[in-house]
């Protein structure tokens, strides 16, 4: 093969022609395609065997089971030590027998329904309001200067402080409770969205620019999906705040006719029924944990799709 412009050094080294080794070509197989495919196959990690489903479930549950067992044990030991009279601090067996009786009544489920309806309405309202505020704040610089730190300040405010005002504004009504629940949750939701939008990686923004994304398309195809993980953690935190605010509200704001979990707990206290009070504590705990599990599942599913999980 003639070289038209041999470089100085190549000339010195006295090299000529084609140094490409002849490739043994099988008919019908493109050797280059095979190279590429081979490299791809080598670079992809083999799929890890996750193990049997039962084993995995056991692996993730046994620490929880152990934790519960430890708590029950300490509780039982405290009861045995007769630190408090048995009618003030009943034993786990008494409480769980009572719990079994309570949750088989329709009344109890009515209470759960009232409470969960409030929780979901309040949370959804907070999500809508928080999202709108978050979007506005991340959009307009003056708004950010004005409201940005206020939002963070609101987050640190114990929600129970709002109830006196809420009661004056809305009397003893559902609105008073919703008011506080929304105030508790909306700042977290807004903050989640704001930081999501703020921390969209620069390289992605550059890609968006190169692809000519502008205005709405940029939000639809880049900013919003990119801020999703942060938004979800905002939602999760918002839920935790709204659930706490709601429980405080149900103890303070007794709306006539609405026999929520909080009201039932108050009634149990008025009857000095410690066991029933503890039953409701356990119920509230379980509901909280269940919803948290849902949020974590959503979060993990997202992380897995994005490849952000290390395992």
């Amino acid at each position, binding site marked *: 093969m003639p070289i038209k412009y041999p*470089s100085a050094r190549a000339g010195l080294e006295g090299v000529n022609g084609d*140094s490409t080794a002849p490739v043994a070509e099988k008919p019908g197989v493109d050797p280059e395609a095979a190279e590429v495919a081979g*490299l791809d196959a080598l670079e992809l990690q083999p799929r890890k065997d996750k193990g049997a489903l039962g084993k995995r479930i056991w692996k993730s549950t046994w620490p929880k089971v152990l934790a519960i067992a430890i708590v029950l044990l300490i509780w039982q030991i405290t009861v045995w030590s007769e630190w408090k009279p048995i009618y003030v601090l009943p034993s786990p067996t008494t409480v769980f027998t009572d719990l079994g009786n309570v949750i088989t009544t329709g009344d109890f489920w009515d209470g759960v329904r009232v409470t969960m309806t409030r929780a979901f309405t309040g949370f959804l309202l907070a999500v809508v309001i928080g999202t709108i505020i978050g979007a506005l704040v991340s959009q307009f610089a003056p708004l950010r200067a004005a409201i940005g730190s206020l939002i963070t300040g609101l987050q640190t405010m114990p929600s129970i402080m709002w109830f006196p005002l809420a009661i004056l504004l809305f009397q003893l009504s559902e609105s008073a409770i919703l008011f506080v629940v929304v105030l508790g949750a909306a700042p977290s939701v807004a903050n989640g969205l704001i930081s999501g939008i703020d921390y969209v990686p620069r390289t992605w923004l550059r890609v968006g620019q*190169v692809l000519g994304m502008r205005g709405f398309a940029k939000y639809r*195809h880049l900013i919003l999906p990119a801020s999703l993980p942060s938004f979800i953690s905002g939602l999760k935190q918002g839920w935790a705040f709204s659930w706490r605010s709601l429980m405080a509200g149900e103890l303070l704001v007794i709306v006539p006719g609405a026999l929520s979990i909080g009201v039932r707990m108050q009634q149990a206290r008025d009857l000095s029924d410690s066991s029933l009070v503890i039953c409701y504590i356990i119920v509230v705990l379980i509901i909280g944990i269940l919803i948290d599990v849902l949020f974590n599942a959503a979060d993990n599913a997202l992380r897995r*799709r994005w*490849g952000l999980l290390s395992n």
Partner: protein
Amino acid sequence: MSLLQQKTGSVVRLENVSKSYGDLLALDRVSLTVGQGEFVCLLGASGCGKSTLLSLVAGLDGITGGTLDTGGRKVSLMFQEAALFPWLSVRGNVELPLRLQGVSRPERRQRAEELLGIVRLGGFADKRPHELSGGMRQRVALARALAQNADILLMDEPFGALDAMTRDILHDELERIWREQQLTVLFVTHNVREAVRLGDRVILLSSRPGRVIEDYPITHERPRRIDSPEVAGQAAEITDRLRAEVARHAH
């Protein structure tokens, strides 16, 4: 007559283009033309303004002085990171530019299929970006850039983060795609051999301020190999020139 001269018309023309960031003069009166179908490599020491030059050509940033003419042609830009969107599948990433252009769903699916075929990733359409290796991701990014149907493809050290073996194979791939798709490429690299391996021309930029100091035509027959003596020889010559330029900054 060389292959170079047969190719008609310039698609990118820079005349005395300057770019300053405040006090810092990043590019100083850079003149450069890239012909239709040409593969031009930009070479220079770190911080000499190669990335700046590309972002000017891509229209991501405005020039401070001179004229820059791409004749209104569409420009696409690829980076060292593939920067694929993790919320989209491989197919979704390649379809995105088409979606933004308002291409209908079936058409876009078909085109994405074609493009993934071109970068030899036909079977990976439904994977997530994180499931692919670095080299494969970079090929998806190439398919995404091709989906923009741009006339000019700018590449900013696209293989800089890959291992030598993968890079070698991707050179062959890029050369094939460039030939088959009749692309015009402006390719930035630190790697002299890579530049000689790929380019029709290698343009050397000086540092602080960035100026064009050499324009080497590379006329070795294609397909080339990065380890062939011709490529190595010319690379050595260019490296010497580059070192002399860097040494100029010693005092």
